[in-house]
């Protein structure tokens, strides 16, 4: 049976990107034919400016060469312009009469430069700035002629002007308005930009309306409405682009300014898809690459018949590709009613920064002269990060935030070339940067595939993304704000949890089936997450799936580098006695445990136990009343305490007893990531409660509650939540806080990262402002604990999951014919 046919019209970035995404999802699903009007392979149009400026060659910017098309069995027609689409017979026809039938048609016809309707527009030497041909014509002119005029003081016009100046021409930029790049910059930033460009040798004529281009045969001068004239041997029109919709229109596909598409990138004819600059989506047109790539991803998803992705618009950012000028803008940079503006100006350094803030969230940014933090601000915009906690420092940039408060984010730009980024795979920054440039990588996944960075534990993912952004410029920041749970789905953590809750999905197979998982049984990333989400949502009904748990939780011990395990008995609040110590010592001796160590959390670790001996060692410990310390789990680990008022001459409260009570209440609870607590008996804080997920510090009049601390990879001090009076209050708050975290954080997200994402005010509003809500959360926590508090060691010592611990033995056959 022959495969369905997919025809792509337009061999540009959006269309070919869609094919790449499609080939990843469903290779071999279609017979693919591509028509490109240009005689070139697919190239990176964004990099035409550096080619014009002589910083890159044409070869440098080819994205997919002919071999790529051949390798994927794609028929490529270069230099063939499609002139008609027959939607009834489902075929397309080119200028030279080539006909190709389709089952699905993808329009990616891009846009054409807008040419001002002035006399002389047809003269030789008048060009747009759109494709390789335009660049070639400009380069030709720069060799023979002297005066260039660029009409249009936007992003593209300035890039063209910069390139022509570098090629030795005398360049004047003509702009209708009184400020440059008015679609990206506010007035102060535009003024700084203009001055810098003037210093570099560009001329400007603002508030100038072009009336005519003069000359015979070749252009000679530009005349303006006010009667003035300037010489011009080359005129570049960069006043805007126009979606190329003629073909679609002629075929009766509904168009307004662009080809209208739905959230699934389908036109009014469901067989016909469209992506890129030729489309109009929710009233918007597109001229930057990031949204095109997001569209490509969605389109590919539907072409592959997964049918779950939706394009919902993009937040975009801009960077000017003019060497020596640092400029960044994103979002609602102009501000307006309901917005606040945070401003930083240092005229002598030529630095200008503006952040537009609404409801304590960054909604726009303009940076000039120092754009190092562009990627950081942009990330906060897309994540909707609440900035109230660090608002006063935000304009000074991420480097001034100290270590606290920023999760995996860090300063990729300032990182030394030989700095190790990925500890698991030993990848340094230079390797990543080189791969991005040489192998033309655009996305995190591609970087993972080519360098292995972030491919193992993933703790360096944020850093790798930053390196990607800083290497490519923000034009390329294609990692969508919406991050899928893993490669098996396009749904986010939140969407999956929501679906499980509202659709009553109660097993992993049900969930995968209902939500259209791409793989039969997921992967090592999604299965543990789904297992946790179901466990948390349906504490009474869900049956835990051991095969969807990481080995540590499956066998209730910590796997070590040599494949042995470590055993950590629970020691409530860190308080023990000679009997327990003796039991632990005896067990260590009897089982010849190679290493006994006090852990960072005041517990005793027995290291180096072979897996098969685990049930026996647990049985022995169990005899003396010792139970699992869950030191291996995404669960409550320890409650660290100081000696408190019982012994300490400064202690004001009984922190030890409260610590034990807290541990008795919360042990056994599964959580999105590991959880540590601590109780300190006075503000000297000997239990280091202010770097714990939940920290309690005694003061004379009661207890201070602190949340979201972390002593791990990235140290984060807690946020102060509130003060309470009694031990009972502490217990209620702790349970409610843990439950809120359990119900709303993403799997593997520590409380520190969760609080940074949702903001302390949100947590405060749920726990402190809403007493009823707090009590309800607490009640749900306690209800789920009724099933959770069973000692897994005791169960396994009695034979549960026996197969985990016993190897198979080869059986002898009756006839031993083969054994000589």
């Amino acid at each position, binding site marked *: 049976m022959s495969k369905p046919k997919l025809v792509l019209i337009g061999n540009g970035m959006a269309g070919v990107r869609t094919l790449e995404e499609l080939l990843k999802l469903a290779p071999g699903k279609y017979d693919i034919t591509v028509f490109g009007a240009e005689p070139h392979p697919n190239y990176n149009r964004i990099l035409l400016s550096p080619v014009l400026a002589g910083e890159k060659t044409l070869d440098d910017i080819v994205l997919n060469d002919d071999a790529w098309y051949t390798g994927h069995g794609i028929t490529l027609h270069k230099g063939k312009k499609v002139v008609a689409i027959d939607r009834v017979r489902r075929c397309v026809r080119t200028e030279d009469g080539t006909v190709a039938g389709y089952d699905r048609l993808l329009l990616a016809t891009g846009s054409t430069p807008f040419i001002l309707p002035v006399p002389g527009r047809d003269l030789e030497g008048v060009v747009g700035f759109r494709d390789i041909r335009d660049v070639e014509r400009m380069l030709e002119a720069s060799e023979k002629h002297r005066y260039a005029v660029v009409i249009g003081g936007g992003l593209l016009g300035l890039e063209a002007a910069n390139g022509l100046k570098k090629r030795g021409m005398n360049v004047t930029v003509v702009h209708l308005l009184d400020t440059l790049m008015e679609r990206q910059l506010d007035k102060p930033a535009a003024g700084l930009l203009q001055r810098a460009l003037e210093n570099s040798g560009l001329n400007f004529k603002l508030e100038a309306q072009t009336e005519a281009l003069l000359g015979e045969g070749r252009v000679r001068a530009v005349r303006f409405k006010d009667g003035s004239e300037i010489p011009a041997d080359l005129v570049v029109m960069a006043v805007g682009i126009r979606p190329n919709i003629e073909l679609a229109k002629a075929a009766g596909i509904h168009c307004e300014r662009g080809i209208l598409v739905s959230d699934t990138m389908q036109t009014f004819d469901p067989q016909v898809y469209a992506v890129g600059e030729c489309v109009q989506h929710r009233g918007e047109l597109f001229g930057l690459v990031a949204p095109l790539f997001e569209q490509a991803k969605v389109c590919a998803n539907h072409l592959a018949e997964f049918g779950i992705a939706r394009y919902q618009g993009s937040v975009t950012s801009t960077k000017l590709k003019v060497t020596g000028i640092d400029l960044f803008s994103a979002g609602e940079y102009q501000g307006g009613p309901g917005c606040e503006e945070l401003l930083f100006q240092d005229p002598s350094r030529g630095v200008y920064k503006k952040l537009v803030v609404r409801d304590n969230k960054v909604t726009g940014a303009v940076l000039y002269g120092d754009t190092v933090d562009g990627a950081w601000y942009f990330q906060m915009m897309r994540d909707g990060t609440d900035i109230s906690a660090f608002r006063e420092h935000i304009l000074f940039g991420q480097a001034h935030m100290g270590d606290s408060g920023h999760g995996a984010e860090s300063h990729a730009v300032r990182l030394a070339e030989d700095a190790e980024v990925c500890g*698991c*795979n030993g990848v340094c920054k230079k390797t990543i940067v080189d791969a991005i440039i040489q192998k033309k990588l655009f996305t995190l996944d591609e970087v*993972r*595939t*080519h*360098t*292995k960075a972030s*491919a*193992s*534990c993933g703790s360096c993912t944020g850093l790798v993304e930053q390196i990607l952004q800083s290497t490519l410029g923000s034009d390329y920041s294609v990692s969508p704000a919406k991050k899928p749970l893993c490669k098996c789905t396009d749904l986010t953590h939140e969407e999956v949890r929501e679906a499980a809750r509202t659709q009553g999905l109660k097993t992993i197979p049900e969930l995968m089936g209902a939500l259209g998982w791409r*793989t*039969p*049984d*997921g*992967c*090592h990333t999604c*299965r*543990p997450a789904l297992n946790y989400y179901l466990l948390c949502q349906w504490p009474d009904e869900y049956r835990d799936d*051991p*095969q*969807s748990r*990481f*080995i*540590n939780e*499956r*066998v209730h011990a910590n*796997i070590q*580098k040599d*494949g042995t395990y470590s055993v950590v008995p629970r020691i409530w609040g860190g308080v023990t006695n000679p009997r327990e110590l003796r039991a632990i010592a005896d067990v260590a001796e009897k089982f010849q445990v190679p290493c006994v160590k006090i852990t960072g959390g005041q517990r005793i670790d027995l290291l180096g136990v072979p897996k098969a001996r685990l049930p026996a060692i647990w049985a022995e410990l169990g005899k003396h009343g010792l139970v699992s310390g869950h030191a291996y789990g995404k669960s409550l680990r320890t409650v660290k305490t100081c000696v408190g008022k019982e012994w300490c001459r400064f202690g004001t409260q009984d922190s030890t007893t409260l610590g034990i009570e807290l541990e008795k209440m919360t042990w056994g609870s599964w959580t999105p990531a590991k959880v540590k607590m601590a109780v300190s008996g006075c503000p000297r804080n000997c239990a280091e409660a202010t770097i714990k997920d939940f920290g309690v510090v005694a003061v004379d009049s009661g207890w201070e509650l602190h949340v979201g601390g972390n002593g791990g990879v990235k140290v984060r001090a807690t946020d102060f939540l509130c003060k309470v009076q009694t031990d009972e209050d502490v217990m209620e708050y702790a349970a409610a806080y843990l439950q809120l975290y359990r119900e709303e954080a993403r799997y593997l997200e520590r409380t520190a990262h969760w609080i940074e994402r949702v903001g302390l005010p949100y947590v405060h509003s749920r726990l402190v402002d809403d007493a009823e809500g707090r009590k309800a959360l607490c009640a749900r926590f306690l209800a789920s604990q009724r099933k959770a508090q069973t000692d897994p060691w005791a169960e396994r010592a009695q034979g549960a999951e026996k*197969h985990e611990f016993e*190897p*198979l*033995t*080869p*059986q002898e*056959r009756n006839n031993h*014919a*083969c*054994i*000589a």
Partner: protein
Amino acid sequence: MNSWTPIASLEDIPRQGARIVATPEGAIAVFRTLDDRVFALLDRCPHKGGPLSEGIVHGARVTCPLHNWVIELDSGQAVAPDEGCVRRFPVRIEDGMVAIVLPDTLVGT
């Protein structure tokens, strides 16, 4: 000459899981996928020797529990970007029993 040695009934190996068989050449991990296919690999990740039998089995792949390398169960090949290969052993199901061809040294003893 090698021979098929029964090691367990299929039910002894958990779906999406593995059991090991100890041999003088090291442990062999015998995997059972969701759709009841069986595979046998040396229980050592080509990366740092992690016990593959303890990994999460998904599709016909297993993820090593030490550093998340993903290994193809049918070929023993590491999935890109990683490179490496782990030794395979012939394995089949006959009459509900899983049988493997053990390394020569064991058969000879």
